[in-house]
């Protein structure tokens, strides 16, 4: 490595990680890119509906400021406003850049980028590539980064999982330890700076819309080494997912953006096929309650309404399901604009949503919370940066649809120059020779050896199932303090039992057991952060809803929750939110203007 060239390690090869890698390579520096799966298979591929940017091609008077206002209002004023404004200002240029990279965005007749409606806004602001926009954006970055790989700037470590940071005596991040998922070999990576871009922690809830890689394990490791974790209690439950045995598959908000209508039969227990139920015997409860936004209210609002309707016994067939109906839209239009997601539904459920209303229910989807970062994507650990879903910075108490692809790319683009600036100025000293990497590697090896040697009889997969169930039952749409307390007790019980697991694989080559055990331990730590953050926040804001505290309470809780690791669990503190650009106001989607 030439001494003028910086070395940055990036953990995670989804949109945020690849966006940062591309910028660093372009600036002439070297990247070690560490990813549990080949980067082209990262969870970003699952994003469906689109990416927001106020390009205002529909003559609606949209602007980046309105996008900013919608985002802050949608997040119930919990986000620090300056970075949100920066992101919204950059959004049109980010979309243009992807356009130049060859993303096959859907087009207007004139050959311009087309935009669709999404939740929490009254404007057509969402650029899209059919209904597989995340896949298409990820591939564009994957291609650019592959080009940089050919040019020798990016070294990919695919099939490696980060286990821990390497911190020096002054708590400065000097690299990381990762494990090869085939050989279980551990390797120390020296780096002038590390960028975390590891996505969300959906697997803590067992079944979610997330990929199986979304354990939050690496961010939890950072937290356990001293990184602050912010707003962990803000978990987005997506209103429309397809329940499954192995996961909850996402049904994109774009289905409603293109005109999809949510309804249940007016008569409870109506057994007729949905197509045989006349219009006046259907209850379009979102349209009735929110005349201006209708089916495109923000996700937290739609989720609570659907959840409540089902709780009161009005769900289809008395079950936890409502109809999401596209059948009034011409089949050809649906195929063109939503084909990919309709195929997913048809493939897994067996009905064709062009002709039969879909049956959907809310499912855990996204974490607004994540590693605490400042406005330059710096965590509180010098040399450690974070971007994308694993950082907390943009979405406040609720994320608007099609803002996640944007915030991932924005975060990556902001973290890269920030990390390079830091790396240029940091004293390397003798960090490559003073043995801290070796010491950390030995510590991690000892943990692996302990897992392999443990013979207590507990089954790690059963513990994971129990965690997922208790979290889904108590720490999602509706939250009660007594149940949150009981949940935390349960998590601590699971932590105890974790000490007694026995892995059931005697062949350690490419085993899933050791990596899963390590992920599970980290998930349990993060589950406490989520649960106790929820317990402590006695108000309702965005996705966090407590019937016993139904109002937003700005006096006490217009604050970011900060969790810091201690041996006894998270220590919580609060810091004020930067509201320098927009005065907080009541959030009410029953009104057409806000």
């Amino acid at each position, binding site marked *: 490595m030439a001494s003028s060239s910086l070395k940055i390690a990036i953990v995670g090869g989804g949109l945020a990680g690849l966006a940062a890698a*591309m910028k660093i390579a*372009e600036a002439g520096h070297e990247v070690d890119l560490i990813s549990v*799966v*080949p980067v*082209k*298979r*990262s969870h970003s591929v*699952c994003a469906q509906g689109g990416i927001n940017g106020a390009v205002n091609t529909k003559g609606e008077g949209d602007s980046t400021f309105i996008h900013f206002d919608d985002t802050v209002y949608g997040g119930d004023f919990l986000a620090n406003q300056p970075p949100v404004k920066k992101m919204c200002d950059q959004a049109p*240029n980010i979309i*243009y850049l992807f*356009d*130049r*990279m*060859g*993303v*096959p*965005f*859907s*087009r207007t007749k*004139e*050959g*311009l*980028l087309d935009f669709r409606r999404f939740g929490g806004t009254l404007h057509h602001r969402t650029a899209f*590539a059919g209904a*597989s926009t995340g*896949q*298409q954006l990820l*591939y564009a970055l994957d291609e*650019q980064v*592959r*080009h940089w*790989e*050919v040019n020798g700037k990016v070294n990919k470590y695919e099939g490696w999982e980060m286990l821990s940071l390497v911190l020096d005596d002054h708590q400065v991040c000097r690299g990381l330890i990762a494990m090869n998922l085939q050989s279980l070999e551990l390797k120390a990576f020296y780096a002038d700076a590390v960028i975390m871009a590891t996505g969300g922690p959906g697997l803590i809830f067992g079944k979610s819309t997330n*990929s*199986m*890689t979304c354990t939050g394990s690496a961010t939890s490791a950072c937290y356990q080494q001293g990184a602050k974790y912010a707003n962990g209690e803000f978990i987005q439950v997506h209103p429309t997912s397809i329940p*499954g*045995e*192995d*996961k909850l*598959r996402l049904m994109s908000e774009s289905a409603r953006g293109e005109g999809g209508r949510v309804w249940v039969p007016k008569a409870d227990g109506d057994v007729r096929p949905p*197509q*045989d139920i006349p219009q006046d015997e259907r209850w379009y409860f979102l349209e009735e309650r929110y005349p201006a936004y209708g089916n495109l209210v923000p996700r937290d609002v739609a989720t609570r309404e659907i959840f409540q309707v089902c709780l009161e016994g009005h769900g289809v067939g008395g079950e936890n399901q409502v109809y999401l109906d596209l059948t009034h839209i011409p089949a050809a239009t649906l195929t063109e604009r939503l084909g990919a997601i309709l195929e*997913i539904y048809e*493939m*897994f459920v*067996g*009905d*064709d949503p*062009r*002709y*039969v209303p879909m049956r959907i229910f809310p499912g855990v989807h996204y974490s607004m919370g994540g590693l605490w970062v400042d406005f330059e994507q710096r965590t509180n650990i010098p040399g450690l940066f974070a971007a994308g879903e694993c950082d907390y910075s943009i979405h406040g108490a609720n994320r608007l649809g099609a803002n996640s692809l944007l915030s991932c790319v924005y975060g990556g683009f902001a973290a890269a120059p920030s990390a390079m600036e830091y790396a240029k100025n940091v004293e390397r000293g003798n960090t490559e020779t003073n043995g801290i990497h070796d010491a950390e590697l030995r510590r991690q090896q000892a943990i692996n050896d302990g897992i392999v040697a443990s013979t207590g009889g507990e*089954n790690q*997969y059963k513990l994971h199932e129990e965690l997922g169930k208790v979290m889904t039952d108590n720490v999602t749409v509706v939250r009660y303090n007594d149940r949150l307390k009981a949940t935390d007790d349960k998590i601590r019980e699971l932590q105890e039992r974790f000490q007694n697991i026995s892995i*059931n*694989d005697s*062949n350690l*080559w*490419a085993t*899933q057991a050791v990596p899963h055990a390590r992920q599970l331990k980290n998930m349990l730590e993060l589950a406490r952060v989520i649960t106790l953050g929820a317990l402590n926040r006695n108000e309702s804001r965005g996705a966090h809803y407590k019937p016993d505290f139904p109002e937003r309470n700005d006096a006490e809780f217009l604050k970011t929750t900060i969790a810091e690791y201690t041996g006894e669990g998270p220590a919580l503190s609060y810091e004020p939110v930067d509201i320098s650009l927009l005065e907080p106001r009541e959030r009410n989607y029953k009104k057409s203007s806000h």
Partner: protein
Amino acid sequence: MSTNEHVHKKKLTDPPKTIKFKIQRREKEGADARWETFEIPYRRNLNVISALMEIRKNPVTADGKETTPPVWDMSCLEQVCGICTMVINGRVRQSCSALVDDLLLATGGNTITLQPMSKFPNVRDLKVDRSRMFEHLKQVNAWIELDGTYDLGPGPHISTEVAHERYVYSRCMTCGCCLEACPQYSEDQYIGPQAIAQARLFNMHPVGKLEMDERLNGLMEENGIANCGNAQNCLEVCPMSIPLPRAIYETNRDITVNSLFGWLKK
């Protein structure tokens, strides 16, 4: 239009009490393969992955022998990441979208057979190493050359038709079904339909066209496009219904045109 026409999935009316999974096992690359059969209780809405998860929890064979848990790859479970591809009842496909009811209906029995893809190094059990597919993308320069990633305004106008056509190719998730099914593809002797279709994707783009020569050169190497035997198996197995033979045909046409008129550029 009546509802029932579009509820096209046949339901399994008389499901068995248990289902058997006959799984091809291999401890590591180069080790001998062996078969093990597992039996789990039937449940509604199982796919192959949820069955594998059930087996992993308690890996005991159908005849009661304790064994190691089968290893496989999985990630998105929505058939968009491509990682969980394997050979199921003799057909290459994603295991997330392989629904147990459908498999039982198709065979009439209660046994489902799982094997790793055969055209790639077998890491262990059902897990294979497909990294050479990503190498093939390098060989065909599967990217657009940018002046830089700073703000240079929007890309070129593109017609709806071209955008549609490119979108279809851009859905390729590098799963490798086409290579598994291709009679010509083995080891590294033929680059295969996946990379050729990606070359086509970029050659269709107004800016990507500018680098068409490099891409076509990549495809004229010894392992290149000339090895296609036109069996068209790739079209049959592509989970994204990408018109792979058409990409190969059109790219061959580009190569012909390019070599006919190449001297004009010199």
